[in-house]
Protein backbone atom coordinates (compact mmCIF):
# COMPACT_ATOMS: atom_id res chain seq x y z
CA UNK A 1 0.00 0.00 0.00
CA UNK A 2 2.87 2.36 0.70
CA UNK A 3 4.85 1.31 -2.39
CA UNK A 4 3.37 3.56 -5.05
CA UNK A 5 2.65 6.32 -2.62
CA UNK A 6 5.45 8.81 -2.23
CA UNK A 7 2.99 11.37 -3.46
CA UNK A 8 0.18 10.17 -1.23
CA UNK A 9 -0.25 12.25 1.88
CA UNK A 10 -3.40 10.74 3.34
CA UNK A 11 -5.05 7.46 2.59
CA UNK A 12 -8.43 6.33 3.91
CA UNK A 13 -9.48 2.71 3.35
CA UNK A 14 -12.89 1.13 3.94
CA UNK A 15 -13.77 3.31 6.90
CA UNK A 16 -17.03 2.49 8.67
CA UNK A 17 -18.16 4.38 11.75
CA UNK A 18 -21.31 4.68 13.85
CA UNK A 19 -22.33 6.88 16.74
CA UNK A 20 -24.25 5.49 19.72
CA UNK A 21 -24.14 2.17 21.56
CA UNK A 22 -24.74 -0.92 19.44
CA UNK A 23 -28.08 -1.66 21.16
CA UNK A 24 -29.33 1.93 20.99
CA UNK A 25 -32.20 2.35 18.48
CA UNK A 26 -31.01 5.90 17.84
CA UNK A 27 -27.60 4.65 16.73
CA UNK A 28 -26.61 6.17 13.40
CA UNK A 29 -24.25 4.92 10.77
CA UNK A 30 -22.13 7.98 10.01
CA UNK A 31 -19.64 6.68 7.47
CA UNK A 32 -20.09 3.63 5.29
CA UNK A 33 -17.14 2.14 3.48
CA UNK A 34 -15.41 5.39 2.78
CA UNK A 35 -12.29 5.41 0.61
CA UNK A 36 -10.20 8.36 -0.44
CA UNK A 37 -6.64 9.31 -1.31
CA UNK A 38 -5.22 12.78 -0.88
CA UNK A 39 -2.03 13.72 -2.72
CA UNK A 40 0.84 15.58 -1.20
CA UNK A 41 0.55 19.36 -1.60
CA UNK A 42 -3.01 19.54 -2.83
CA UNK A 43 -5.96 21.35 -1.32
CA UNK A 44 -8.99 19.13 -0.99
CA UNK A 45 -12.44 20.29 0.03
CA UNK A 46 -14.99 18.01 1.67
CA UNK A 47 -18.51 19.13 0.89
CA UNK A 48 -21.81 17.39 1.58
CA UNK A 49 -25.16 17.71 3.31
CA UNK A 50 -25.30 18.34 7.07
CA UNK A 51 -24.58 15.22 9.07
CA UNK A 52 -22.92 13.41 6.17
CA UNK A 53 -19.84 12.67 8.26
CA UNK A 54 -17.35 15.02 6.60
CA UNK A 55 -16.25 16.49 9.94
CA UNK A 56 -16.14 12.97 11.40
CA UNK A 57 -13.80 12.00 8.58
CA UNK A 58 -11.63 15.04 9.29
CA UNK A 59 -11.44 14.13 12.99
CA UNK A 60 -10.28 10.65 12.02
CA UNK A 61 -7.52 12.05 9.81
CA UNK A 62 -6.56 14.29 12.74
CA UNK A 63 -6.43 11.29 15.08
CA UNK A 64 -9.09 12.76 17.38
CA UNK A 65 -11.39 9.85 16.58
CA UNK A 66 -10.61 6.24 15.71
CA UNK A 67 -12.74 4.54 13.03
CA UNK A 68 -14.71 1.47 14.09
CA UNK A 69 -13.58 -0.33 10.94
CA UNK A 70 -11.06 0.43 8.23
CA UNK A 71 -7.94 2.53 8.49
CA UNK A 72 -6.51 5.99 8.02
CA UNK A 73 -2.87 6.35 7.04
CA UNK A 74 -0.66 9.41 6.91
CA UNK A 75 2.54 8.94 4.93
CA UNK A 76 1.93 5.20 5.16
CA UNK A 77 1.61 5.14 8.98
CA UNK A 78 -1.60 4.09 10.65
CA UNK A 79 -3.25 6.97 12.52
CA UNK A 80 -4.29 6.05 16.08
CA UNK A 81 -3.80 9.34 17.94
CA UNK A 82 -3.18 13.00 17.09
CA UNK A 83 0.13 13.53 15.26
CA UNK A 84 0.99 17.11 16.14
CA UNK A 85 4.33 16.96 14.29
CA UNK A 86 2.63 16.19 10.98
CA UNK A 87 -0.90 17.50 11.28
CA UNK A 88 -2.25 20.85 12.44
CA UNK A 89 -5.95 21.34 13.03
CA UNK A 90 -7.99 24.50 12.67
CA UNK A 91 -11.51 24.61 14.08
CA UNK A 92 -14.61 26.55 13.10
CA UNK A 93 -14.43 29.04 15.96
CA UNK A 94 -13.78 29.48 19.64
CA UNK A 95 -10.58 27.46 19.65
CA UNK A 96 -8.41 30.34 20.88
CA UNK A 97 -7.68 30.39 24.60
CA UNK A 98 -9.54 33.48 25.85
CA UNK A 99 -7.22 34.08 28.81
CA UNK A 100 -4.08 34.24 26.66
CA UNK A 101 -2.91 36.99 24.32
CA UNK A 102 -2.71 36.39 20.59
CA UNK A 103 1.04 35.77 20.88
CA UNK A 104 0.64 33.41 23.85
CA UNK A 105 -2.09 31.50 22.03
CA UNK A 106 0.29 30.80 19.18
CA UNK A 107 3.18 29.95 21.50
CA UNK A 108 1.03 27.59 23.54
CA UNK A 109 0.47 25.47 20.43
CA UNK A 110 4.24 25.14 20.09
CA UNK A 111 4.57 24.34 23.81
CA UNK A 112 2.16 21.43 23.29
CA UNK A 113 3.94 20.36 20.12
CA UNK A 114 7.28 20.43 21.93
CA UNK A 115 9.07 23.22 20.05
CA UNK A 116 12.19 24.56 21.78
CA UNK A 117 11.48 27.64 23.86
CA UNK A 118 14.08 29.72 22.05
CA UNK A 119 12.29 29.23 18.72
CA UNK A 120 8.75 29.94 19.89
CA UNK A 121 8.83 33.73 19.87
CA UNK A 122 10.31 34.06 16.39
CA UNK A 123 8.04 31.47 14.86
CA UNK A 124 4.95 32.98 16.48
CA UNK A 125 5.80 36.47 15.26
CA UNK A 126 6.56 35.19 11.78
CA UNK A 127 3.21 33.39 11.64
CA UNK A 128 1.40 36.54 12.78
CA UNK A 129 3.20 38.49 10.08
CA UNK A 130 2.03 35.97 7.50
CA UNK A 131 -1.63 36.51 8.39
CA UNK A 132 -1.18 40.28 8.64
CA UNK A 133 -1.75 40.62 12.39
CA UNK A 134 1.74 41.50 13.60
CA UNK A 135 0.35 44.57 15.40
CA UNK A 136 -2.10 42.54 17.45
CA UNK A 137 0.33 40.24 19.27
CA UNK A 138 -0.61 41.52 22.72
CA UNK A 139 -4.38 41.70 22.15
CA UNK A 140 -6.74 39.22 23.72
CA UNK A 141 -9.11 37.20 21.51
CA UNK A 142 -12.15 39.05 22.90
CA UNK A 143 -10.71 42.26 21.46
CA UNK A 144 -10.65 40.87 17.91
CA UNK A 145 -13.34 40.51 15.25
CA UNK A 146 -14.43 37.04 14.10
CA UNK A 147 -12.29 37.23 10.98
CA UNK A 148 -9.22 38.32 12.94
CA UNK A 149 -9.68 35.47 15.42
CA UNK A 150 -9.68 32.97 12.59
CA UNK A 151 -6.54 34.56 11.19
CA UNK A 152 -4.91 34.04 14.58
CA UNK A 153 -6.11 30.44 14.60
CA UNK A 154 -4.58 30.05 11.14
CA UNK A 155 -1.33 31.64 12.33
CA UNK A 156 -1.25 29.17 15.22
CA UNK A 157 -1.74 26.26 12.83
CA UNK A 158 0.94 27.61 10.45
CA UNK A 159 3.44 28.16 13.26
CA UNK A 160 3.37 24.43 13.95
CA UNK A 161 5.02 23.93 10.54
CA UNK A 162 3.24 20.70 9.74
CA UNK A 163 2.95 19.15 6.29
CA UNK A 164 -0.77 18.69 6.69
CA UNK A 165 -3.39 21.25 7.70
CA UNK A 166 -6.94 20.17 8.52
CA UNK A 167 -9.56 22.91 8.51
CA UNK A 168 -13.05 22.25 9.83
CA UNK A 169 -15.26 24.98 8.34
CA UNK A 170 -12.70 27.56 9.42
CA UNK A 171 -14.60 30.47 7.92
CA UNK A 172 -18.07 29.03 8.55
CA UNK A 173 -19.04 31.52 11.22
CA UNK A 174 -17.90 34.58 9.26
CA UNK A 175 -19.87 36.83 6.94
CA UNK A 176 -19.53 36.19 3.22
CA UNK A 177 -17.35 39.19 2.44
CA UNK A 178 -14.83 38.34 5.16
CA UNK A 179 -14.69 34.71 4.11
CA UNK A 180 -14.05 35.63 0.47
CA UNK A 181 -11.09 37.77 1.45
CA UNK A 182 -9.76 35.12 3.81
CA UNK A 183 -10.21 32.55 1.04
CA UNK A 184 -8.08 34.64 -1.31
CA UNK A 185 -5.41 35.02 1.37
CA UNK A 186 -5.44 31.29 2.05
CA UNK A 187 -5.02 30.50 -1.65
CA UNK A 188 -2.06 32.88 -1.75
CA UNK A 189 -0.53 31.32 1.35
CA UNK A 190 -0.87 27.85 -0.01
CA UNK A 191 0.82 28.53 -3.26
CA UNK A 192 3.89 29.40 -1.18
CA UNK A 193 3.59 26.98 1.74
CA UNK A 194 3.32 23.69 -0.16
CA UNK A 195 1.08 22.07 2.43
CA UNK A 196 -1.50 19.38 2.04
CA UNK A 197 -4.81 20.86 3.13
CA UNK A 198 -8.15 19.26 3.84
CA UNK A 199 -10.87 21.85 4.12
CA UNK A 200 -14.43 21.05 5.22
CA UNK A 201 -17.02 23.52 3.98
CA UNK A 202 -20.72 24.02 3.37
CA UNK A 203 -20.13 26.66 0.76
CA UNK A 204 -20.16 25.65 -2.90
CA UNK A 205 -18.38 28.85 -3.91
CA UNK A 206 -15.69 28.42 -1.29
CA UNK A 207 -15.08 24.81 -2.38
CA UNK A 208 -14.69 25.73 -6.06
CA UNK A 209 -12.60 28.80 -5.30
CA UNK A 210 -10.14 27.05 -2.98
CA UNK A 211 -9.87 23.40 -3.93
CA UNK A 212 -7.71 21.49 -6.31
CA UNK A 213 -10.22 18.68 -5.90
CA UNK A 214 -13.66 18.72 -4.30
CA UNK A 215 -14.81 15.49 -2.63
CA UNK A 216 -18.61 15.38 -2.69
CA UNK A 217 -20.07 13.33 0.17
CA UNK A 218 -23.35 11.44 -0.07
CA UNK A 219 -26.13 11.92 2.49
CA UNK A 220 -25.66 9.87 5.68
CA UNK A 221 -24.15 7.31 5.86
CA UNK A 222 -21.33 9.25 4.23
CA UNK A 223 -19.30 7.96 1.31
CA UNK A 224 -17.64 9.71 -1.62
CA UNK A 225 -20.20 10.36 -4.36
CA UNK A 226 -17.94 12.16 -6.81
CA UNK A 227 -14.66 14.02 -7.09
CA UNK A 228 -14.60 17.31 -8.95
CA UNK A 229 -11.26 18.50 -10.35
CA UNK A 230 -10.69 22.27 -10.32
CA UNK A 231 -7.83 22.92 -12.72
CA UNK A 232 -6.82 26.45 -11.85
CA UNK A 233 -3.43 27.43 -10.46
CA UNK A 234 -2.95 28.98 -7.00
CA UNK A 235 -2.94 31.77 -5.94
CA UNK A 236 -6.45 32.26 -7.24
CA UNK A 237 -7.53 35.74 -8.13
CA UNK A 238 -10.88 37.40 -7.44
CA UNK A 239 -11.36 37.40 -11.23
CA UNK A 240 -11.67 33.59 -11.07
CA UNK A 241 -15.04 34.04 -9.35
CA UNK A 242 -16.49 35.95 -12.28
CA UNK A 243 -15.16 33.52 -14.90
CA UNK A 244 -17.40 31.16 -16.84
CA UNK A 245 -15.30 28.22 -15.71
CA UNK A 246 -15.97 28.99 -12.04
CA UNK A 247 -19.70 29.21 -12.67
CA UNK A 248 -19.81 25.96 -14.66
CA UNK A 249 -17.95 24.13 -11.92
CA UNK A 250 -20.16 25.61 -9.23
CA UNK A 251 -23.28 24.56 -11.15
CA UNK A 252 -21.89 21.08 -11.64
CA UNK A 253 -21.13 20.83 -7.94
CA UNK A 254 -24.61 22.02 -7.09
CA UNK A 255 -26.26 19.39 -9.26
CA UNK A 256 -24.09 16.69 -7.66
CA UNK A 257 -25.04 17.89 -4.19
CA UNK A 258 -28.66 18.72 -4.72
CA UNK A 259 -29.97 15.17 -4.67
CA UNK A 260 -27.96 14.35 -1.53
CA UNK A 261 -29.23 17.41 0.29
CA UNK A 262 -32.82 16.38 -0.54
CA UNK A 263 -32.16 12.87 0.73
CA UNK A 264 -30.66 14.17 3.93
CA UNK A 265 -33.60 16.52 4.53
CA UNK A 266 -36.14 13.78 3.87
CA UNK A 267 -34.41 11.67 6.44
CA UNK A 268 -34.67 14.42 9.02
CA UNK A 269 -38.43 14.65 8.49
CA UNK A 270 -40.25 12.58 11.10
CA UNK A 271 -42.07 9.55 9.70
CA UNK A 272 -40.09 9.33 6.47
CA UNK A 273 -36.99 8.08 8.27
CA UNK A 274 -35.20 5.36 6.39
CA UNK A 275 -33.60 2.52 8.30
CA UNK A 276 -30.51 4.46 9.21
CA UNK A 277 -29.63 2.35 12.23
Amino acid at each position, binding site marked *: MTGSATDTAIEVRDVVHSFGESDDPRRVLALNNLNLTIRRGELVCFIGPSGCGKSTMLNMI*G*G*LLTPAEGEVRIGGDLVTA*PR*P*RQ*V*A*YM*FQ*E*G*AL*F*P*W*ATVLDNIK*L*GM*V*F*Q*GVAKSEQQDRALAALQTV*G*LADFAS*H*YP*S*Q*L*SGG*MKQRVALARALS*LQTDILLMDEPFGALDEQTRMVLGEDLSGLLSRANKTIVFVTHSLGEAVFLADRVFVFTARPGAIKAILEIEEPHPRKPSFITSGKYNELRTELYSLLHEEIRKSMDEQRPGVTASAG
Partner: protein
Amino acid sequence: MAALPPMARAAAPRGFKDRLAVRAVQLGFLAAILLLWYLMTANGAINPLLLPPFTGVVRQFLRVVAAGDFIADLRTTVYELLMALAIALVCGGTVGYLTSRTRFRIRVFDPLLSGLYSVPGIVIYPLYVLFFGLGPPSKIAIGATIAFFPVALSTMTAFGTVDPVLVRAAKSMGASDWQLFRYVLLPAAFPLIVTGVRMGIIIAFLAIIGSETIASLSGLGHQIVTFAESMNMTVMFAYIVFVILIALLLNGFVSSLEARAQRR
Protein backbone atom coordinates in the same frame (compact mmCIF):
# COMPACT_ATOMS: atom_id res chain seq x y z
CA MET B 1 -7.17 46.15 9.47
CA ALA B 2 -6.19 49.69 10.39
CA ALA B 3 -8.97 50.55 12.82
CA LEU B 4 -9.77 48.55 15.92
CA PRO B 5 -12.98 46.54 15.64
CA PRO B 6 -15.94 47.75 17.74
CA MET B 7 -15.33 44.99 20.31
CA ALA B 8 -11.96 46.45 21.20
CA ARG B 9 -13.57 49.70 22.19
CA ALA B 10 -16.38 48.04 24.11
CA ALA B 11 -13.87 45.99 26.10
CA ALA B 12 -11.82 49.02 27.12
CA PRO B 13 -12.09 49.96 30.81
CA ARG B 14 -14.72 52.50 31.77
CA GLY B 15 -13.74 56.13 32.25
CA PHE B 16 -11.99 57.39 35.34
CA LYS B 17 -14.76 59.90 35.99
CA ASP B 18 -17.34 57.16 35.97
CA ARG B 19 -15.43 55.08 38.52
CA LEU B 20 -14.87 58.16 40.67
CA ALA B 21 -18.63 58.79 40.75
CA VAL B 22 -19.31 55.19 41.82
CA ARG B 23 -16.74 55.40 44.62
CA ALA B 24 -18.07 58.79 45.77
CA VAL B 25 -21.63 57.49 46.10
CA GLN B 26 -20.42 54.37 47.95
CA LEU B 27 -18.39 56.41 50.44
CA GLY B 28 -21.26 58.87 50.83
CA PHE B 29 -23.56 55.97 51.71
CA LEU B 30 -21.21 54.72 54.44
CA ALA B 31 -20.71 58.26 55.77
CA ALA B 32 -24.48 58.74 55.93
CA ILE B 33 -24.87 55.60 58.09
CA LEU B 34 -22.15 56.78 60.47
CA LEU B 35 -23.67 60.24 60.58
CA LEU B 36 -27.07 58.77 61.39
CA TRP B 37 -25.49 56.74 64.20
CA TYR B 38 -23.75 59.83 65.50
CA LEU B 39 -26.92 61.96 65.44
CA MET B 40 -29.08 59.27 67.05
CA THR B 41 -26.70 58.75 69.96
CA ALA B 42 -25.26 62.27 70.42
CA ASN B 43 -28.00 63.71 72.61
CA GLY B 44 -28.95 60.55 74.49
CA ALA B 45 -32.11 59.93 72.45
CA ILE B 46 -31.28 56.21 72.42
CA ASN B 47 -30.34 54.23 75.51
CA PRO B 48 -26.52 53.83 75.30
CA LEU B 49 -26.94 50.24 76.51
CA LEU B 50 -28.70 49.43 73.26
CA LEU B 51 -26.61 51.61 70.97
CA PRO B 52 -23.52 53.25 72.49
CA PRO B 53 -22.53 56.68 71.18
CA PHE B 54 -20.46 56.76 68.02
CA THR B 55 -17.73 58.91 69.55
CA GLY B 56 -17.43 56.58 72.55
CA VAL B 57 -16.99 53.56 70.30
CA VAL B 58 -14.33 55.32 68.24
CA ARG B 59 -12.48 56.29 71.43
CA GLN B 60 -12.77 52.77 72.81
CA PHE B 61 -11.64 51.24 69.51
CA LEU B 62 -8.52 53.45 69.46
CA ARG B 63 -7.83 52.54 73.08
CA VAL B 64 -8.16 48.81 72.36
CA VAL B 65 -5.87 49.17 69.35
CA ALA B 66 -3.30 51.21 71.28
CA ALA B 67 -3.30 48.81 74.23
CA GLY B 68 -3.01 45.78 71.99
CA ASP B 69 -5.71 43.92 73.95
CA PHE B 70 -7.24 42.63 70.77
CA ILE B 71 -4.16 40.93 69.34
CA ALA B 72 -4.60 37.50 70.92
CA ASP B 73 -8.27 37.25 69.92
CA LEU B 74 -7.68 38.59 66.43
CA ARG B 75 -4.89 36.08 65.96
CA THR B 76 -7.13 33.23 67.12
CA THR B 77 -9.95 34.15 64.75
CA VAL B 78 -7.68 34.75 61.75
CA TYR B 79 -5.82 31.50 62.44
CA GLU B 80 -9.11 29.59 62.59
CA LEU B 81 -10.28 31.18 59.36
CA LEU B 82 -7.06 30.50 57.44
CA MET B 83 -6.89 26.89 58.59
CA ALA B 84 -10.54 26.33 57.73
CA LEU B 85 -10.03 27.82 54.26
CA ALA B 86 -6.90 25.79 53.60
CA ILE B 87 -8.75 22.58 54.43
CA ALA B 88 -11.82 23.60 52.42
CA LEU B 89 -9.68 24.54 49.39
CA VAL B 90 -7.71 21.29 49.36
CA CYS B 91 -10.69 19.00 50.04
CA GLY B 92 -13.26 20.97 48.03
CA GLY B 93 -10.88 21.47 45.12
CA THR B 94 -9.95 17.79 44.99
CA VAL B 95 -13.51 16.51 45.31
CA GLY B 96 -14.75 19.10 42.79
CA TYR B 97 -12.09 18.20 40.23
CA LEU B 98 -12.54 14.45 40.60
CA THR B 99 -16.32 14.64 40.27
CA SER B 100 -16.06 16.87 37.22
CA ARG B 101 -14.21 14.23 35.19
CA THR B 102 -17.21 12.23 34.00
CA ARG B 103 -20.78 13.16 33.23
CA PHE B 104 -21.94 10.24 35.40
CA ARG B 105 -20.14 11.52 38.49
CA ILE B 106 -21.52 15.02 37.97
CA ARG B 107 -25.02 13.52 37.76
CA VAL B 108 -24.44 11.62 40.99
CA PHE B 109 -22.68 14.28 43.05
CA ASP B 110 -24.16 17.56 41.89
CA PRO B 111 -27.53 17.03 43.65
CA LEU B 112 -25.82 15.49 46.69
CA LEU B 113 -23.43 18.39 47.20
CA SER B 114 -26.09 21.03 46.42
CA GLY B 115 -28.50 19.37 48.85
CA LEU B 116 -25.96 19.24 51.67
CA TYR B 117 -24.89 22.82 50.90
CA SER B 118 -28.42 23.99 51.64
CA VAL B 119 -28.35 22.48 55.15
CA PRO B 120 -27.39 25.12 57.78
CA GLY B 121 -23.99 23.64 58.66
CA ILE B 122 -24.01 25.21 62.11
CA VAL B 123 -26.36 22.42 63.29
CA ILE B 124 -23.38 20.09 63.60
CA TYR B 125 -21.38 22.58 65.67
CA PRO B 126 -22.39 21.01 69.03
CA LEU B 127 -21.09 17.71 67.71
CA TYR B 128 -17.78 19.32 66.73
CA VAL B 129 -17.49 20.80 70.23
CA LEU B 130 -17.86 17.27 71.61
CA PHE B 131 -15.26 15.94 69.15
CA PHE B 132 -12.72 18.77 69.17
CA GLY B 133 -13.38 20.72 72.37
CA LEU B 134 -14.00 24.40 72.99
CA GLY B 135 -10.75 25.66 71.45
CA PRO B 136 -9.91 26.61 67.85
CA PRO B 137 -10.12 23.06 66.36
CA SER B 138 -13.92 23.00 66.59
CA LYS B 139 -14.09 26.42 64.84
CA ILE B 140 -11.69 25.26 62.13
CA ALA B 141 -13.80 22.14 61.62
CA ILE B 142 -17.08 24.04 61.28
CA GLY B 143 -15.53 26.69 59.00
CA ALA B 144 -13.95 24.03 56.79
CA THR B 145 -17.14 21.98 56.61
CA ILE B 146 -19.24 24.96 55.60
CA ALA B 147 -16.74 26.38 53.08
CA PHE B 148 -16.16 22.94 51.54
CA PHE B 149 -19.48 22.90 49.66
CA PRO B 150 -19.30 26.11 47.61
CA VAL B 151 -15.66 25.36 46.78
CA ALA B 152 -16.43 21.77 45.70
CA LEU B 153 -19.51 22.77 43.72
CA SER B 154 -17.90 25.64 41.88
CA THR B 155 -14.79 23.57 41.15
CA MET B 156 -16.93 20.77 39.77
CA THR B 157 -18.95 23.13 37.60
CA ALA B 158 -15.85 25.02 36.50
CA PHE B 159 -13.97 21.94 35.32
CA GLY B 160 -17.14 20.29 34.01
CA THR B 161 -18.01 23.18 31.70
CA VAL B 162 -14.67 23.86 30.02
CA ASP B 163 -15.40 24.39 26.32
CA PRO B 164 -14.67 21.03 24.63
CA VAL B 165 -13.32 22.86 21.56
CA LEU B 166 -10.43 24.17 23.66
CA VAL B 167 -9.66 20.65 24.87
CA ARG B 168 -9.80 19.22 21.35
CA ALA B 169 -7.60 22.04 20.04
CA ALA B 170 -5.00 21.41 22.75
CA LYS B 171 -5.06 17.65 22.11
CA SER B 172 -4.72 18.14 18.37
CA MET B 173 -1.57 20.17 19.04
CA GLY B 174 -0.16 17.34 21.15
CA ALA B 175 -0.88 18.48 24.73
CA SER B 176 -0.07 15.85 27.36
CA ASP B 177 -2.53 15.24 30.21
CA TRP B 178 -0.50 17.44 32.52
CA GLN B 179 -0.20 20.22 29.92
CA LEU B 180 -3.92 20.00 29.27
CA PHE B 181 -4.57 20.51 32.98
CA ARG B 182 -1.97 23.20 33.53
CA TYR B 183 -2.49 25.29 30.38
CA VAL B 184 -6.13 24.69 29.46
CA LEU B 185 -8.38 23.23 32.17
CA LEU B 186 -7.01 25.23 35.10
CA PRO B 187 -7.02 28.68 33.47
CA ALA B 188 -10.43 27.98 31.91
CA ALA B 189 -11.89 26.91 35.26
CA PHE B 190 -10.14 29.49 37.42
CA PRO B 191 -12.66 32.38 37.35
CA LEU B 192 -15.56 30.19 38.44
CA ILE B 193 -13.46 28.49 41.13
CA VAL B 194 -12.57 31.89 42.58
CA THR B 195 -16.26 32.74 42.80
CA GLY B 196 -16.84 29.60 44.86
CA VAL B 197 -13.84 30.37 47.06
CA ARG B 198 -15.25 33.84 47.67
CA MET B 199 -18.55 32.35 48.82
CA GLY B 200 -16.61 29.89 50.98
CA ILE B 201 -14.60 32.62 52.68
CA ILE B 202 -17.68 34.67 53.46
CA ILE B 203 -19.67 31.83 54.98
CA ALA B 204 -16.66 30.32 56.79
CA PHE B 205 -16.03 33.66 58.48
CA LEU B 206 -19.70 33.85 59.42
CA ALA B 207 -19.61 30.33 60.85
CA ILE B 208 -16.39 30.91 62.78
CA ILE B 209 -17.51 34.17 64.39
CA GLY B 210 -20.91 32.61 65.04
CA SER B 211 -19.50 29.49 66.66
CA GLU B 212 -17.14 31.60 68.78
CA THR B 213 -20.17 33.37 70.20
CA ILE B 214 -21.87 30.03 70.93
CA ALA B 215 -19.13 28.14 72.75
CA SER B 216 -15.46 29.11 72.85
CA LEU B 217 -12.46 30.13 74.94
CA SER B 218 -11.13 33.01 72.83
CA GLY B 219 -11.51 34.83 69.53
CA LEU B 220 -13.28 37.98 68.42
CA GLY B 221 -16.72 36.36 68.65
CA HIS B 222 -15.92 35.19 72.17
CA GLN B 223 -14.97 38.72 73.24
CA ILE B 224 -18.11 40.22 71.71
CA VAL B 225 -20.31 37.87 73.75
CA THR B 226 -18.25 38.40 76.92
CA PHE B 227 -18.56 42.19 76.70
CA ALA B 228 -22.25 41.95 75.84
CA GLU B 229 -22.88 39.78 78.88
CA SER B 230 -21.08 42.28 81.11
CA MET B 231 -23.11 45.10 79.51
CA ASN B 232 -19.89 46.70 78.33
CA MET B 233 -21.45 47.86 75.07
CA THR B 234 -18.86 50.38 73.92
CA VAL B 235 -16.04 47.83 74.02
CA MET B 236 -18.29 45.22 72.42
CA PHE B 237 -18.90 47.60 69.53
CA ALA B 238 -15.18 48.26 69.25
CA TYR B 239 -14.70 44.52 68.69
CA ILE B 240 -17.54 44.45 66.19
CA VAL B 241 -15.60 47.10 64.25
CA PHE B 242 -12.71 44.60 64.05
CA VAL B 243 -14.97 41.97 62.58
CA ILE B 244 -16.30 44.47 60.05
CA LEU B 245 -12.78 45.52 59.08
CA ILE B 246 -11.66 41.92 58.58
CA ALA B 247 -14.74 41.20 56.50
CA LEU B 248 -14.12 44.26 54.33
CA LEU B 249 -10.45 43.36 53.87
CA LEU B 250 -11.26 39.77 52.96
CA ASN B 251 -13.97 40.82 50.56
CA GLY B 252 -11.72 43.41 48.93
CA PHE B 253 -8.94 40.88 48.51
CA VAL B 254 -11.12 38.17 47.00
CA SER B 255 -13.04 40.61 44.81
CA SER B 256 -9.84 41.89 43.28
CA LEU B 257 -8.71 38.30 42.70
CA GLU B 258 -12.05 37.54 41.10
CA ALA B 259 -11.97 40.66 38.95
CA ARG B 260 -8.49 39.74 37.72
CA ALA B 261 -9.54 36.19 36.97
CA GLN B 262 -12.60 37.30 35.02
CA ARG B 263 -11.06 40.22 33.21
CA ARG B 264 -11.00 38.36 29.90
